[in-house]
């Protein structure tokens, strides 16, 4: 027995209208009329997106995941603000500095700091080896000045979220997540990597959605020969083993291409295999919707095709598309990550989570510097949050799926 507030089937127009209070709108035995009305109020129906939002709000976990995703998106948009040191700056002598954990309470009061590090030259390998030195207290402040960067590529500034009071120097390094073999700050690189990894996910999903809705729509709405061809194409693409194909395609990108070109190429490659699932779903929906009464009604009242498609049909499943898109982003992120990890995707000097993880490919590196694995944790958290968020959206968009 579902409570009667759910009326999200049917054209969008009806949703904004109050159910009329006269019997003329209805034939048959049901209809408000004279008699005690206080128990039979007309039901106000909210627009579809509001219903979806209310249902979504009930899932506390999905809500929390949404918040996490927003935080990650903030980092992706303003990596410079969150970074502490220049992401490309390498310091030959400061390789594999261990993680300097941020601590907040010193002698009972709130005063953030990290422990310093002390280095010693290994007599055999002649390399500097670094250890945490709990004798040194390096105070940390918020909103400090640091290296210059551009916000959204336009505004120059040098304010950062955190930093050491005197700015990181060789005597007082500030490696929140340690440094890699070239002495680069992992924390800052993680921040910049977030932007690339997340945006590749978003852009490739956007392209997928576009292709999927377009092809699925043509296929489902128009049917006939177009449908046949597109369906065969989808079958063909879906039967391909994705991983070897991706590997082969990305491997075929010329090595001398610029970072931007490679970025776009990879986005395209990921999207090219990814659009098929969405296309199938969209096609299925169009096939069903085509026969629905409200579409026939719209046709009969003279609406042209474009209006029918965009004003009547698409809104009914737009929430599904959003949910499906949200669930597709983590797939793309993982794909880019492992492709770059294998050396086939983005390459240095580009920074993405996969590129960062390249440094952690073998046991020696991990044994020496386990903190190099932390970008992987970023992947896990992001993918987890996006998956939960996507599931929450999907459940909110279609409660009958339960």
């Amino acid at each position: 027995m579902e409570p009667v507030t759910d009326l999200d089937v049917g054209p969008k127009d009806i949703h904004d209208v109050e159910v009329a209070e006269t019997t003329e709108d209805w034939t048959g035995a049901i209809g408000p009329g004279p008699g005690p009305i206080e128990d039979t109020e007309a039901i106000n129906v909210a627009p579809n997106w509001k219903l979806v939002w209310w249902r979504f709000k009930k899932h506390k976990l999905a809500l929390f995941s949404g918040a996490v995703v927003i935080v990650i998106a903030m980092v992706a948009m303003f990596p410079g603000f969150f970074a502490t040191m220049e992401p490309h700056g390498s310091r030959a002598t400061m390789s594999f500095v261990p993680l300097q954990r941020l601590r907040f309470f010193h002698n009972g009061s709130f005063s953030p700091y990290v422990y310093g590090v002390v280095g010693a030259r290994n007599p055999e390998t002649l390399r500097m080896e670094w250890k945490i030195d709990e004798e040194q207290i390096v105070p940390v402040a918020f909103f400090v000045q640091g290296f210059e960067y551009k916000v959204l590529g336009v505004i120059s500034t040098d304010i950062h979220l955190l930093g050491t009071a005197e700015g990181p120097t060789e005597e007082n390094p500030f490696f929140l997540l340690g440094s890699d073999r070239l002495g680069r700050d992992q924390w800052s690189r993680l921040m910049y990597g977030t932007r690339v990894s997340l945006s590749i996910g978003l852009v490739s999903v956007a392209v997928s959605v576009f292709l999927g809705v377009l092809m699925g729509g043509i296929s489902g709405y128009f049917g006939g020969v177009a449908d046949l061809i597109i369906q065969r194409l989808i079958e063909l693409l879906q039967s391909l083993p994705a991983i070897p194909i991706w590997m082969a395609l990305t491997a075929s990108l010329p090595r001398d291409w610029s970072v931007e070109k490679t970025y776009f190429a990879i986005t395209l490659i990921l999207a090219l295999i990814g659009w098929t699932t969405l296309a199938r779903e969209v096609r299925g929906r169009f096939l069903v919707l085509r026969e629905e009464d409200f579409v026939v009604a719209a046709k009969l009242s003279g609406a042209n095709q474009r209006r029918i498609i965009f004003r009547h049909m698409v809104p009914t499943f737009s929430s599904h598309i959003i949910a499906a898109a949200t669930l597709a982003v983590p797939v793309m992120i993982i794909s880019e990550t492992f492709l770059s990890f294998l050396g086939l995707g983005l390459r240095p000097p580009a920074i993405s989570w996969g590129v960062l993880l390249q440094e952690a490919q073998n046991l020696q590196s991990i044994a020496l510097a386990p903190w190099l694995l932390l970008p992987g944790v970023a992947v896990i958290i992001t993918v987890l949050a996006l998956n939960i968020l996507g599931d929450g959206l999907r459940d909110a968009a279609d409660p009958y799926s339960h």
Partner: protein
Amino acid sequence: MNPTEPLLSVQNLKTYFFLDEGIVKAVDGVDFDVYPGQVVGIVGESGCGKSVTIKSILRLTQKPGRIVEGEILFRSQLVTDADSGSDVIDLTTLDPHGRRMRAIRGAEIAMIPQEPMASFSPVHTVGNQLTEAIQLHEDVNDDEAWRIAIERLHEVGMPNPEQRMDAYSWELSGGLRQRAMIAMALSCNPRLLIADEPTTAIDVTTQAQVLNLLRSLQKMYDMAIIFITHDLGVIAQVADYVVVMYLGRVMETGPVDDIFHNPLHPYTKALLKSIPSIYSPSGTELPTIEGSIPHPFSRPSGCPFYPRCEAFMPGVCNASDPELQSVNERQSASCFLYEEK
């Protein structure tokens, strides 16, 4: 079986659904009896609780629904009451998944569901499902079960029963599917058959055939039937006794002739009036019952029908709940008009 003692007696049955948004009192105090060989028709609008009532009888209520109060007394020949040893057993005390309830379900009380198409498994043959129904309750081998199944199909008027056994349910037409479902329900000679709107999904001609079939089978097996429908015309054809339900409560009960010729409850009267008559002159406005079924979470207090009742008595009808009382020697109604002070 003593014809003067009821086969099934539902007393003050209450089945509530506990949702996040609130409690839906789908069945809120229902009483009626079914005697051996009698056809009882339960009639009411959608949402009045007819289906939930019969699911409760069969102990098929799923979460978040639950029987919260009441008794369902059944005179069983297979199961005896654990404590008293009597053959009258209260079904609400049995574990719905337990052996005893399962022995009763299908063998003594059988159900014909609302949608025979969806109630057959699409990937198993009709024969497979039929023999399964038989072998669940009778100790026979596969060949014997097969034979019995074919016999049953024959009884329900299925042409070419041997062939049909290997067919899938979706290969059969609506009418044949319904017959196969009836055959499956009757395969173990139940003493009570519950038919959940069996004629709603089929056309009028097939409807007549199915009703005739049910009537002849009823006589042949001397079984009682509880027949659920919202169609008063069907009630007039099949029922001996009528139970009128509204919003989870019984409004009126009585023999079918009395209900149609001397309805007591204002709701029954309104229902009968709202049947369009083929004899009325054209252009007559379709009679309706004013008002609409209230939202499940905002039921009116007092008599559930008072917001739409022509005989509404302010201060009485909305103040307290009426009880189902005998008005004359055959009919009972739940209405303050007949309440003895």
